[in-house]
């Protein structure tokens, strides 16, 4: 088993505990900005939905509901796994943690693949952002263009976040494997996992808006 390198706090911190607290607070503040970043898009969705309820209903009915719902399940599972991984690392089970993080990253990739398949289906049907494509020649309701533009914009931004989250977890995974991340500084994995959960939370709201209601 790889022995871990002793872990010290950074020069300007008194102790590791304070540094961990700072890291967690920093991540939460960052998540607050993410909430407002997506929140702005949600606000646009809400106002357009109030203005064009009928078109938005049509859009939802036409969406790839089964695939979108499957993807929700994928993200929920990934979140559960990475939360378990944090507990494992805290308890000193580095190996278990590394497997769980690997699985989480894998599920993230599955999510992206499914998302890609969905996009492909839309393009086949002639649905592009900005109301471009032949689908809009047959469906004229005012607001449909906005629905699909927001759909593509928001899900693409979310997919970017999934990608970033997977990269962050990948970096942490390599730290675990190289013995730089263990029980003492488990807060680093915790912080990465919190980010992953937030990406999940955003999808939890995107799903009903674009696929269900």
């Amino acid at each position, binding site marked *: 088993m790889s022995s871990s390198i002793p872990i010290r706090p950074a020069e300007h911190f008194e102790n590791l505990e304070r540094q961990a607290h*700072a890291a967690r*607070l920093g991540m939460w503040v*960052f998540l607050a*900005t993410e909430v407002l970043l997506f929140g702005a898009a949600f606000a646009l969705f809400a106002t357009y939905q109030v203005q064009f309820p009928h078109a938005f209903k049509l859009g939802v009915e036409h969406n790839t509901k089964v695939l979108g719902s499957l993807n929700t399940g994928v993200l929920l599972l990934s979140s559960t796994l990475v939360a378990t991984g944090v507990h494992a690392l805290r308890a000193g089970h580095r190996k278990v943690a590394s497997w769980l993080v690997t699985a989480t990253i894998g599920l993230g990739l599955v999510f992206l693949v499914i998302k890609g398949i969905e996009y492909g289906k839309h393009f086949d049907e002639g649905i592009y*952002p900005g109301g471009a494509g032949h689908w809009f020649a047959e469906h004229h309701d005012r607001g449909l263009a906005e629905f699909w*533009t927001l759909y593509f*914009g928001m899900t693409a931004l979310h997919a970017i976040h999934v990608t970033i989250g997977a990269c962050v977890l990948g970096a942490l995974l390599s730290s675990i494997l190289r013995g730089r991340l263990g029980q003492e500084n488990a807060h680093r994995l915790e912080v990465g996992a919190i980010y992953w959960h937030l990406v999940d939370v955003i999808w939890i709201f995107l799903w009903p808006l674009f696929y269900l209601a």
Partner: protein
Amino acid sequence: MSTTPLAPAASPAPEASHAPGASPRPVAHPSYLGVDTTLRSWLLTTDHKRIGVLYLVTLLATMALGGFFALALRIEHLTPNATIVSAMTYNRMFTLHGVIMVWLFLIPSIPSSFGNFVLPMMVGAKDVAFPRLNLLSYWIFVAGSILVLLSTGIGGIDTGWTFYPPYSSISATAVPLALLGVFIIGFSTILTGLNFIVTTHTMRAKGVGWMRLPLFVWSIYATSIIQVLATPVLGMVLLFVVVDNGLGWGLFDPARGGDPVLYQHLFWFYSHPAVYIMVLPGMGVVSEVVASYARKNPFSYKAIAYSSLGIAFVGFLTWGHHMFVAGMSKFDAGAFGVLSMLVAVFSAIKVFNWTWTLKRGAVALKTPLLYIFAFLFLFVFGGMTGVATASMSLDVHWHDTYFIVAHFHFIMVGGTLTAFLAGLHYWFPKMCGRMYPERLGMLSAALVFAGFFVTFFPQFLLGNAGMPRRYFNYPPQFQVLHIVSTVGSWVLAAGLILTAFYFLWSLRWGAPAGPNPWGSRSFEWRTASPPPKHNFRREPPFEIDPYDYTQPLPDEVYQ
């Protein structure tokens, strides 16, 4: 009373001690300027003080650039028709002036330069919580600024700094590039704000409780909250305009069912709070300077501290007052009109506090304080006109006229810029260890104030008489006031150029400042000037309040 007698000032020659060779250990530490002098050590530094200096130098350059455009705009208006540029160039110049002044100068001005330099010292820390993130934030800022400036090279941008669609969705100028630049600068703003929030929470030294923080920290803290929570909304809406213009998505294009008013909602949800990003740090400088030169604790510490948070919050409730004539519903217009009135309350609390502190204090009249007087007068003036325009019936008359231009320049230039200059004079001795020439300082403060007033007061009259903003031509009867305004801008420029010259001179020939030239009690003055790399060589016992002038100055320097 408690600590003073034991150790009288220990270090006679602050700077001369970049110990040559193998001098024994107890020699004073080299200052943060002296530890390493290569270019690389500056560009890759994680020392908050050096990053503050980097920002300061960069921001002074962007301010000069924005000022150059301002002078050109004013000269253009010397005559009612074309004077020096074409109408298209004029449009590009006022846009660029606005974008540069708002995002490349005013937003980061005080927090990123002085905030970075003094905030960690004021909380008694060795550095900010995330030093490398701090450096990253600087370079992101540089990258975003370069993008904005590049856009000038490839066609400029002619939408005005507010980027309103539908025009910005179709303008053939370099809209996507410039907006991406602003978007990227937003990241830098967020990271700096995040760093300050976490630093204030987790890095305070023993003895520095929340109620013992210098007031500048409170105002930067409140600013950071706005930066972190408002900027992402701007980022999102700008991205949508980028794809609207670049890829033809048309989310805000009425021809495709889009609603441009929604852009304005999101834009002002950021940009009204953003005006408090610009002015709150200035208020922090005022609090420091007033206490230092009045040699008195603020009339009510808590009122000033909490009103910063109050402003940060209420600032988020008023954005609709920019949209009274944009087609927003009457219900929303009424709501925003009423909510806007609340803002004035917290600003007034501060103003009364400062004036009362000055009245009760033993005032030492120095250049920074002169600037503070200018701030108080101009800020109140500008703020009151703001309250007036926030009444819908008046705004219908004033909207998009020079009245509005005068309103916000009174606060952004008369308020923030004067506070910035006050801070520059106040902390220059700390940053460089040398004094500026006091007489010249006072002279240029007078020039800046007079020049400013002559430039912008006539614009109230112009606007009220019906002169619309952002117009290239104007009817001849407005010419006299326009000429007065232009001449004023030359006086203002003269004051600023004079300032630039004597600061450059003092860098080399200024009298040595010593650790605490103002006799301030605030924490950043309790180390050497310029401070050593980790700010305090030993942790100073922070048992004296930063505004406690009832006790003799603790003359031990914890350098």
